[in-house]
């Protein structure tokens, strides 16, 4: 069990730019949370505090009962896995198998357990046929899957996915959304940083909206997409299906229909 606790977080970069200001948020084990906002709003800075990649300038961040100020990324990464937006920033091994094994060796697992997990994860993510291939010979979307699989194989309680669907096509997006559902069923906390509103609407239960370094909304996607002032302030557009149900007046006040399935049921 790893709850995340952020209180009065401020982060100032060495060049003096304040990226996150006075953020308070608690995330319980098993929640599916998305973090949204325009580029430069502070969302990536915020989530990088959860595995110690960044340390607070002011305030506190707790990962379970660990104060991130007092523990290294190495220790925190066992609890919180961070999947980079750009797999090239993460992948360096010369085969997919080595890449998947790397983190597992690092956390001190025995050889047979490493083999078991690599087998399992490569089947789950359709990577079996690429195990001996150099990741850089694979296309971007499969490489992105490798980056995600290598983190999930370590079985952290919390998984942070930074823009998982960017640059992915229809099937790639589908595979990633399926993986998120599986993690949810396993009781993992999933935190997604994303501009992909259908994903935010359908696959997460709670949205944190960052705007100009501050957390300006913390609530359900349903509530967010019916909150005009927040949407205007942040230039976020609801999924098309949500806008449609609002226009024809079948959604209730302060509630939105979030998927084609929901809309079909209600009509």
């Amino acid at each position, binding site marked *: 069990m790893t709850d995340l606790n952020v209180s009065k977080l401020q982060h100032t970069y060495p060049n003096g730019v304040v990226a996150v200001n006075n953020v308070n948020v608690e995330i319980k084990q098993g929640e599916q949370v998305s973090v949204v906002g*325009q*580029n*430069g709003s502070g969302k990536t800075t915020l989530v990088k505090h959860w595995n110690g990649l960044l340390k607070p300038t002011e305030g506190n961040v707790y990962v379970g009962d660990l104060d991130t100020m007092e523990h290294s990324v190495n220790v925190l990464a066992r609890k919180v896995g961070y999947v980079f937006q750009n797999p090239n920033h993460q992948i360096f091994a010369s085969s997919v198998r080595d890449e998947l094994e790397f983190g597992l060796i690092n956390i001190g697992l025995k050889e047979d357990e490493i083999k078991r997990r690599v087998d399992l994860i490569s089947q789950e993510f359709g990577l079996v046929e690429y195990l001996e291939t150099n990741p850089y010979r694979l*296309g*971007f*979307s499969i490489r992105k899957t490798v980056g995600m699989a290598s983190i999930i194989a370590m079985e952290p309680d919390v998984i942070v996915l930074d823009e998982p669907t*960017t*640059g*992915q*096509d*229809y*099937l*790639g997006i*589908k595979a990633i959304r399926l993986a998120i559902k599986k993690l949810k069923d396993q009781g993992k906390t999933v935190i997604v940083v994303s*501009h992909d509103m*259908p994903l935010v609407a359908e696959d997460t239960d709670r949205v944190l909206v960052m705007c100009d370094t501050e957390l300006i909304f913390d609530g359900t996607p349903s509530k967010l997409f019916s909150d005009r002032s927040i949407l205007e302030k942040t*230039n*976020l*557009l609801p*999924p*098309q*299906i949500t*806008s*449609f149900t609002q*226009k*024809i007046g079948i959604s209730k006040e302060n509630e939105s229909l979030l998927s*084609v399935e929901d*809309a*079909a049921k209600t*009509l």
Partner: protein
Amino acid sequence: MSVIKVENLTVQYAGEEKNALDGVSLEIEKGEFVALLGAHGAGKTTLCLSLNGIVPNMISADMYGAIEVLGEIPPKIPVRQLATKVGSIFDNPEFQMSQLTVFEEVALGLQNLGVEKTTIEKNITESLKLVGLEGFEERSPFEISGGQQQRLAMASALAMKPEILILDEPTSNLDPIGKEEVFSVTRSLNQEEGLTVIIAEHEVEVIAEFADKLILLDEGKINEIGTPQEIFPKFVEHQEDVGVRVPQVTELASKKYELFDSTPVTLDEAVRMYKG
């Protein structure tokens, strides 16, 4: 009047077994807004790169069949020369930046062509205005937002006064504001300036609104060509096969066809066609 004619075009990269394009034939009319759709590896990028001559002139590949762009044969003329007729925009604008200021960035291509100084200045002013970046002349290309960078890349292409603009996933690395900026500039270039636009893009809801014609590629072949109204309703049941999503309202109408007069592809159409 057709500005692009492609007949039975086949492209194979060295060391690849499969053809990246496999017998593609198509024609594009002056002033059309054409969207290329398809899964990764379907051939969208290769088609874009064949139209601007980068394949095979800069990225080597075997090419068969016929290709004609504004009366030129792209493999037979230098890429730089074709760029005065066909502007190209890619998915990573930062990659295209090299100069210290926005002004110099736009000037670069023109200087390379040996264009006169007064013409250069006039073209830069005009193209920065078209993309809404007037006043940015002295800024650094590396210190502006992603959407601004992509519009700067568009200005650099526009300064050469092209008749065709090719955009390969121009918004995939942008946030919602950046996407909106790039889409609205692209649309006004098409509608106000009459440029022919060819864009590879995954955002089907936007494409359904903007495009006159969709070209659906599948494993290097053309699966279908038609208007969004013709194509999307047809593919509701085959989204997985072709690796392309349809707009959410189209999907809804296919589940609840009894509630709609006809199958919509845009939000406005959906509202109009909904019978309640």
